[in-house]
């Protein structure tokens, strides 16, 4: 149980980093509060696993420090820093039974027998492994093996945090949903900090109360799922969260009006002091981009309409820009000419990809 602080942390796998590109992790300072359920979300290769390995101590950062409750653990080896980690692929000890696998981390730390027995049974019960305790771990299926790995991560009660590195990759989809809910329930019950790495937004949004989005080795936004959706701080967050992703359009913004491809679009506020020389874009989610009949709003061309069952999204072109727009019930464009109306309150202005105002 601990608060985890990352102070001016950065990491490069190269011995003499020169440019920004040499860093796997850009400088960051951040706090993970005790008992939080975090998701670390980002595409492959964005530095998620590096960050996780730094927290668990498998990697020593080249810059900055890691603190558990004000104690500097930056150079402390993994086994001495009270942390649990579950990996992408199941790691089980072949020759041991499921019980021994779960008991292994406790026994290595010299826990008394009755306490080990009680704790292992409790965790096995929570993960529905109770009936498999006597079986050899190597005979289990991939799903059950990963459950054993999860169990080994959760079995120690005193850990500062449990880190999950895309733990449900090998699990089949139906069980994935169930295990994720189970993890969430375990989080409430055990009151431990959990950091869950994933590149799947659904997984992140359903598991976590705080989602941390990473891009190119840096943290671009951290917040509640609804904050990420409604106020993306970075165009990358807009693209990465939501399906389809946010419409981002190069624009000229002056005062309360943006011009995209020559068409004026009203904004909710005034933007009089935008940084000069910056690349200005406006972003609006497809959910707030409404398709309308020709002649209304900004004229666009409809390329196709995707019917997702309960909602429909139109793929449209505004000049050379490809956008997505919500198609309200009853609207059925004829031909390819149509218009779009943007909800002014939901239009964000970005300067060099970062949100302004």
């Amino acid at each position, binding site marked *: 149980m601990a608060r985890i602080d990352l102070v001016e942390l950065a990491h490069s796998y190269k011995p003499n980093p020169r440019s920004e590109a040499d860093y796997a992790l850009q400088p960051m300072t951040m706090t993970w509060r005790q008992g939080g359920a975090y998701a670390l979300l980002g595409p492959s290769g964005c530095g998620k696993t590096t960050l996780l390995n730094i927290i668990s101590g498998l990697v020593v950062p080249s810059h900055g420090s890691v603190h558990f409750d004000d104690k500097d653990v930056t150079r402390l080896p*993994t086994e001495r820093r009270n942390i649990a980690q579950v990996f992408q692929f199941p*790691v089980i000890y072949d020759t041991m039974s499921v019980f021994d696998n779960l008991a*292994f981390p406790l026994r290595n730390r010299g826990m008394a027998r009755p306490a080990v027995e009680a704790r292992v049974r409790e965790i096995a019960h929570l993960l529905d492994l109770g009936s498999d305790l006597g079986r050899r771990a*190597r005979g289990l299926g991939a799903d059950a093996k990963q459950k054993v790995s999860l169990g080994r991560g959760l079995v120690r009660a005193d850990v500062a945090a449990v880190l999950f590195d895309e733990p449900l990759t090998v699990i089949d989809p139906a069980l994935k949903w169930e295990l994720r809910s189970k993890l969430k329930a375990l989080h409430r019950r055990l009151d431990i900090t959990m950091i869950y790495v994933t590149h799947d937004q659904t997984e992140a949004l359903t598991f976590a109360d705080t989602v941390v989005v990473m891009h190119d080795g840096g943290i671009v936004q951290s917040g509640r799922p609804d904050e990420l959706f409604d106020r993306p701080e970075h165009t990358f967050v807009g693209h990465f969260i939501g399906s389809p992703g946010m419409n981002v359009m190069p624009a000229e913004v002056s005062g309360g009006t943006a011009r995209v491809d020559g068409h004026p679009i009203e904004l909710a506020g005034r933007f009089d002091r935008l940084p000069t020389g910056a690349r200005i874009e406006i972003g609006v989610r497809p959910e707030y981009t409404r398709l309308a009949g020709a002649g209304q709003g900004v004229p666009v061309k409809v390329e196709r309409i995707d019917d997702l069952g309960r909602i429909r999204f139109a793929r449209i072109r505004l000049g050379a820009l490809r956008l997505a727009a919500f198609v309200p019930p009853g609207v059925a464009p004829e031909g390819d000419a149509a218009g779009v109306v943007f909800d002014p309150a939901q239009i964000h202005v970005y300067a060099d990809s970062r949100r302004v105002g």
Partner: protein
Amino acid sequence: MVKPLDNKAWWLVLPVFLLVAFNAIVPMMTVVNYSVQDTFGNNQFFWNGVGWYTELLDPSTELGGRFYDSLGRNALFSSIILAIEIPLGILVALCMPKKGWPVAFTLVVLALPLLVPWNVVGTIWQIFARTDIGLLGHTLFGLGIDYNYTQDVFSAWATVIAMDVWHWTSLVALLCYAGLKSIPDAFYQAAKIDGAGRWAVFRTIELPKMGRVLLIAVLLRFMDSFMIYTEPFVVTGGGPGNSTTVLSIDLVKIALGQFDLGKAAAMSIVYYLIILVVCWVYYTVMTQVDDEKRS
């Protein structure tokens, strides 16, 4: 869907069958043929039935006594070889570098002994161990150790064993190294997280993951050491006395020295069956144990 079923595909096996028949089955049957006959030369043969076999397997006869003595020496030799080479090979594999240029370097150095032909290994060691001009022999002698492989039984055995260890431990090490390399990093990381010590990592991760290759390593080293011929032949010639006369050396003495083709043939067959049966039993038992562990 109806699949036409016939056995025509068996004809495709024919070329292989002919090849194997030509170079293995027919020569083998010749040996079987000799083993049930006796000859007094002049290419005249007499039917002897299982006579050679009963004589061979009866320890009270001269032939039987020789056979069991040699067999005992073979068993002892193979046991010592396995007891040294398997743990040593594992140890070497564990100490080998995991990345960078030292990997290639170590692999090449380790593979070198495997490239030396058997009789050359024998010759190298025969000279190496001589007390007058050999580096090893001379050094040992100089240290005041009573070492002489041509006269002392213990020295002779030690030399032959050291030679085999020098020649073949690399094979075990390379096989184990391949097994170790196949263990994903996550296992070592998980062991760190779980607070496992070095010994626990070896016992719970490395050894189980090397199980398969160790099975093969033991099998190969058993067969090879049980059939050893060239090295003791070159170094000790089976001596001093008969102390390093293993089955293969005895076999050659009987077949080519005494020209007792019947006895030698019977001995060959029994020798062959022993290796076949031991390997089969070992492999079957080990894979079954493995399967039981799985279920």
